[in-house]
């Protein structure tokens, strides 16, 4: 009791002593060590088990792996572009409408995050199939039917819908903080609205764009379910290649090596994002 009474600092429960609280790390640390750290290190060992980085050299030489890696990059880049083109105006709109409308737009963008990925991908399958409602509509206006599924088109449409929230939310978080009086100031100094927007608003919103797009890019690189269901083996992405390698060919070493190339790429993209943010922050000052 006396110790509690004499505690002036933050966190009255410090009476237990900082060391006692450290014990609370144990269950979580054990879970992550056993089911995250250990299996990944183990897998790294497996990928390196062949002499002289054999698995990685073999990937480097493999034309199939090169093609799939390139395709994964291209698809991710296209998804990013779609998310930028659709997400930027959407996030911007959220900052200029009334609070009630803004909440509605926020809920709409959160809905996909909260609904089952399986359900949404299944729905795209129904919509985009050769005799689906989208193709019926396209035929009606004389454009279709187009092959929208089992190819990159279907994968891109499905993935962009899944990824858009990850682009919109960071953009909105930054845009919300931009002082719109800066635009008025620019206007009163004689700038046209377009010029003010491009030269003041866009640079200020850039950090949010950077975070959003790198998130989308990284998530797209490792995406599995949507490409597997809406794509085809002939336009497989990296995670599908890994899946085949493990489940059908039983080649753990190569599959693991592919997985670590994916991880390394992911880390490089994130590092580039952090670096770009620093540069942007410095130039803004």
């Amino acid at each position, binding site marked *: 009791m006396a110790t*509690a*009474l004499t*505690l002036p600092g933050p*966190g*009255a*429960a*410090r*009476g237990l002593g*900082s060391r006692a*609280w*450290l014990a*609370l*790390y144990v*269950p*979580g640390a054990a*879970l*992550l060590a056993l*089911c*995250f750290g250990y*299996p990944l290190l*183990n*897998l790294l060992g*497996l990928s390196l088990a062949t002499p002289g980085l054999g698995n990685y050299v073999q990937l480097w030489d493999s034309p199939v792996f090169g093609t799939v890696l390139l395709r994964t990059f291209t698809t991710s880049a296209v998804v990013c572009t779609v998310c930028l083109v*659709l997400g930027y105006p*959407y996030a*911007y*709109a959220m900052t200029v*409408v009334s609070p009630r409308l803004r909440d509605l737009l926020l809920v*709409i963008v*959160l*809905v*996909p995050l*909260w*609904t*089952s*990925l*399986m*359900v949404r991908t*299944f*729905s795209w399958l*129904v*919509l985009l199939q050769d005799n*689906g409602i989208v193709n019926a509509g396209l035929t009606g206006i004389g454009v279709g039917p187009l092959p929208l599924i089992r190819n990159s088109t279907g994968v891109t449409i499905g993935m962009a*819908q899944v990824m858009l*929230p*990850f682009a919109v939310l960071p953009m909105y978080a930054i845009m919300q903080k931009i002082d719109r009086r800066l635009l008025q100031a620019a206007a009163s100094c004689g700038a046209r609205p377009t010029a003010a927007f491009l030269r003041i608003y866009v640079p200020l919103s850039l950090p949010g764009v950077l975070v959003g797009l790198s998130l989308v890019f990284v998530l797209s690189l*490792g995406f*599995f*379910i949507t490409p*597997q*269901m809406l794509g085809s083996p002939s336009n497989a992405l990296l*995670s599908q290649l890994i899946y085949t390698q493990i489940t059908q060919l039983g080649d*753990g070493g190569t599959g*693991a090596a592919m*997985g*670590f190339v*994916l*991880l390394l790429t*992911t880390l490089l993209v*994130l590092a580039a994002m952090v670096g770009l943010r620093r540069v942007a922050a410095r130039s803004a000052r």
Partner: protein
Amino acid sequence: MIARRLLLAGCVLIGAWLVVPTLVAVPVGFSGTRAFVLPPQGWSLQWYENLFTDRRWWDATRNSLVIALLTTVVATVTGTFTALALDRSEFPGKGVVVALLFSPAIVPVILLAIGLFYLFLRLRLAGTIGGLVLAHSVIGMPIVVRTVTASLGERDRRIEQAAAGLGAGPVAVFRDVTLPLVAPGVFAGAVFAFLGSFDEVVLSVFLTSPQTQTLPVLMFNAVTREVDPTIAAASTVVLVFTTLLILIGMRLGRKGLVSRVI
């Protein structure tokens, strides 16, 4: 003014693109024929009947619920403990610990899936409910840490100090003051851990056996092999169930829910 209208029209279209496709599964589930056609030719409840009577679908639903519930317990307990420990302890290198804690969100799930696949084969956990719970908890725990940390950050520490000042011991302060204050964060984290597990496919595809197959895995396997509107019926049930959970979660801890994604 024109620009503003164009912007709003664009938002309506984007909003429709985000929301409407998800609802497509609903009519297909009531289809009268064995086809994924819109609008369905005739109506029936046969796919719902199949969902609730066919052994395969029923077992998968039960597996999913059991695994998600157990995952919620493991992830919520470990996550809440970790968040409290992060809040109360200071030590050199804490930043590294935080980074490691959240690294499951960065590592591609497929990489973790094959890592666990080989580990569980050796530990004889492959294809077991226990193995799936552990795997799903790795994904769920950081989410709980995040929501609980958010509500710990929002609390007014003076309330705890006041309780201590009035003579409450450390345990009493924790049980009667801190825990109720962070309850919304714990609850929101639990809801997300449940949903994350209930919807998880990649880890589950590698780690389930035919006996422990979960609902998303069955849907995933079924969709690539057969045209069975039971998938649509299952989708609709999942959609309704998860929406209800989210609504309950929003009621009880709105901030926690938003903090997860931003």
